[in-house]
């Protein structure tokens, strides 16, 4: 029991708790959240509402007509998918200047508001629409093929398990834990921030579905070997053995050398 209690303070424990929490929240959310109603069908009302919201919340950085300013890129042609991804994952609107917009789990806007802004941005110039259908949930994907595609196209930045990784000058590829399939799909489709675009001719919808299916499967499976130490590879394993392994061994050796009372 001592070993377990000692591990409570391990940095990975926080990561694991966080992950469990996220997974729990994610599951609860997917069960409780109302199913989004026909987001693709956008009416003129939507566009008008979207424009209003856009002017109030986005125009400072992206320009009054989404033409872009010094502080934000143009949104011409980014499509509804891009808006849905950036706002749906809480990345936009950006709280302050940063090398990269971080994912924020507490999204400030309702699905309807995001859909309206997306409709407005989509009305400015053609771009990828918000993906629908079973591909975004990974349904019908081939897990093994998805794994191969993931390793070739994604693992070099997001790490073998989707734990994320460092890019240059403070930028990073974010963790993929607990990210909804739709957003993973949209990220591939639109190439947000540093991420390159994986359009449908590069990775077909079936290929994308396979990647999502692979991620879902590997993230939901148990850690067969025990605590995964954040799935960061040998660095966390080395830290663990140096801190906890050595500590336990020295504790044993110390007890062994102590004179009995």
């Amino acid at each position: 029991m001592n070993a377990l209690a000692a591990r409570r303070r391990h940095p990975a424990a926080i990561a694991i708790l966080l992950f469990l929490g996220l997974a729990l929240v994610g599951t609860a959310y997917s069960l409780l959240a109302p199913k989004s109603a026909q987001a693709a069908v956008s009416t003129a009302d939507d566009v008008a509402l979207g424009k209003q919201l856009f002017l109030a919340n986005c125009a400072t950085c992206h320009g009054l007509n989404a033409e872009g300013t010094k502080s934000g890129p143009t949104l011409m042609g980014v499509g509804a998918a891009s808006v849905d991804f950036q706002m749906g994952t809480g990345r936009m609107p950006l709280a302050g200047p940063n090398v990269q917009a971080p994912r924020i789990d507490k999204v400030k806007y309702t699905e309807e508001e995001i859909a309206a802004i997306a409709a407005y941005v989509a009305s400015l110039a053609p771009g990828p629409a918000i993906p629908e259908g079973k591909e975004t949930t990974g349904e019908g994907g081939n897990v093994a093929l998805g794994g191969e595609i993931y390793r070739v196209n994604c693992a070099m930045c997001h790490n073998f398990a989707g734990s994320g990784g460092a890019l240059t000058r403070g930028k990073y590829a974010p963790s993929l834990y607990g990210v909804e399939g739709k957003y993973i799909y949209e990220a591939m489709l639109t190439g947000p921030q540093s991420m390159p675009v994986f359009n449908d001719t590069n990775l077909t919808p079936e290929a994308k579905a396979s990647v999502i299916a692979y991620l879902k499967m590997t993230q939901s499976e148990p850690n067969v070997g025990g605590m995964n130490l954040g799935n960061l590879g040998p660095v966390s394993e080395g830290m663990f053995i140096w801190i906890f392994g050595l500590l336990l061994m020295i504790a044993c050796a110390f007890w062994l050398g102590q004179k009995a009372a």
Partner: protein
Amino acid sequence: MSTTASARTAADLRADDAKVTSATGSKAGAAAIWVDERTGIAKGAAYMMKKVFPDHWSFMLGEVAMYSMIICLLTGVFLSFWFVPSAGQIPYNGSYVPLQGVIMSEAYSSTLGISFDVRGGLLIRQIHHWAALMFCVAITVHMLRVFLTGAFRKPRELNWVIGSILSMLAIVEGFAGYSLPDDLLSGTGIRAAEGFIRSIPLVGSYISYLLFGGTFPGEAIIPRLYSVHVLLLPAVLIGLFTAHIVLVMVHKHTQFPGPGRTNENVVGFPLMPVYTAKAGGFFFMVFGVLALISALVTINPIWAYGPYDPSPVTAGSQPDWYMGFADGALRLLPGFLEFELFGFTWSMNVFLGAVALIPLMYTAAGVYPWIEAWVTGDKREHHLLDRPRNAPTRTAIGMAAFSFYVVLMFAAGNDIMAIRLQLSINDVTNLFRLLVFVVPVIVFWVTRRICLSLQRHDREKVLHGRESGTIVRTAEGKFFERHEDLDEFDRYKLVAFESPAPLALPSATDLNGVSSKDAKKARRRVAWSNFFFKTRVEPVTPAELAAAHHHGEHEAIPGGSGHAAIKHDKHPH
């Protein structure tokens, strides 16, 4: 319970036990006689059983290494029953669903088999890998212990060298084993290793071709690494390890100075029965701890990495921690170290960190006993250890060298640090490029200061006793804390050390007679001796203690005068 019983001593209690004084008469005795008549082992066995081992927790670090190695050997045999050392490509059809149908090497497929289809296979694999990491950790701290206590001095220099070689081979053995599953991460490691080999001037390309049996990766490297991992290196490791242990027996274990402990004896507990129980029990403790860790903490989840393929790669590609320092060096070495000269490519950016660093580092460690012996001119046998504080310069050198190693090791995690601490990887790398030069210097300086002040603290304690916590008010209204004198046993622990003075330069008249080369050598040695011993603290002498007591009778020691001068005659009157 009668009162007479409770008054009996341990010796009385043991006296009740039937005592076997002769080998004849029992069944075990008969067997022993049978063996002795054919081997003559009784004489040696009697001697061995009486052998004495001193107790100190830090003396068990080497045993952690030894036991981890034995556990690796044991679990390794198990693994070899299921592992297929082949790079032949086959489709996977085991029970791990996300990889079913994927083309992979037989090595990877069989490692998945061990992890998922062999009952308890995953546990054995995890024990094997955790024990390997523990082995390298224990070797490192054991080496540090031996260095910092001066246990490498005559007559143990050879054993220090053997230990250094063992430590280096452990790294190679670990790397070979880590590479065998042929997963994406370890395959990337072999990929990099091929790059390292290529960087060797003149022969690199050919050596790479020989080892890999052609172009990278080829199908030869996995079975060859397997031979190296399960046959060649274990044989060498066991051979050297046996020599290591035999030499420990021959030299008898070192001990810390203390009451009753001299350079001519060893004080502790005999092998039979105390150390048989303690050391034997400790094996089970080490094994048990590793089993628990392996039950609860994943190591090297090869199934998540996927099979090796030269095209993909994972973020955060790192080797196991013991290769970290070399990988860190590679990350820090700047690109301009590669240049073209005489029509050839000199990849010093790779060669220095990946090929040259390891043997250079271990050579430096291996020759240190001779360097120190040359500086001190000390040719005596040393069986009493130095407390690290009592050899400040050596301790500082050891810690500085270790800090250099640690900085390089941490540099191998620059990307993980960048993402976990939300820093720029470029800044982290540049910082490490600076730290690798600055940290050892700072650590050297700080360690020496700490050692010296600890020594002064020891002097203070010997001269003025330990703080009792009792505050006394004098008739004049002054307050002071009463100090209690140490008893002679505690005191001896703090005064039993040497503090050699630096060598003095031979006088000019002496130098007249010797060649200028010898004079230069003498001057160099004096300079080094000064570097080692110029600043030093001497142990308290009985005369000093007597003087302190004399002062103490007249003057209360003001409370809070914890900072004592080195010289007792500076004491305030």
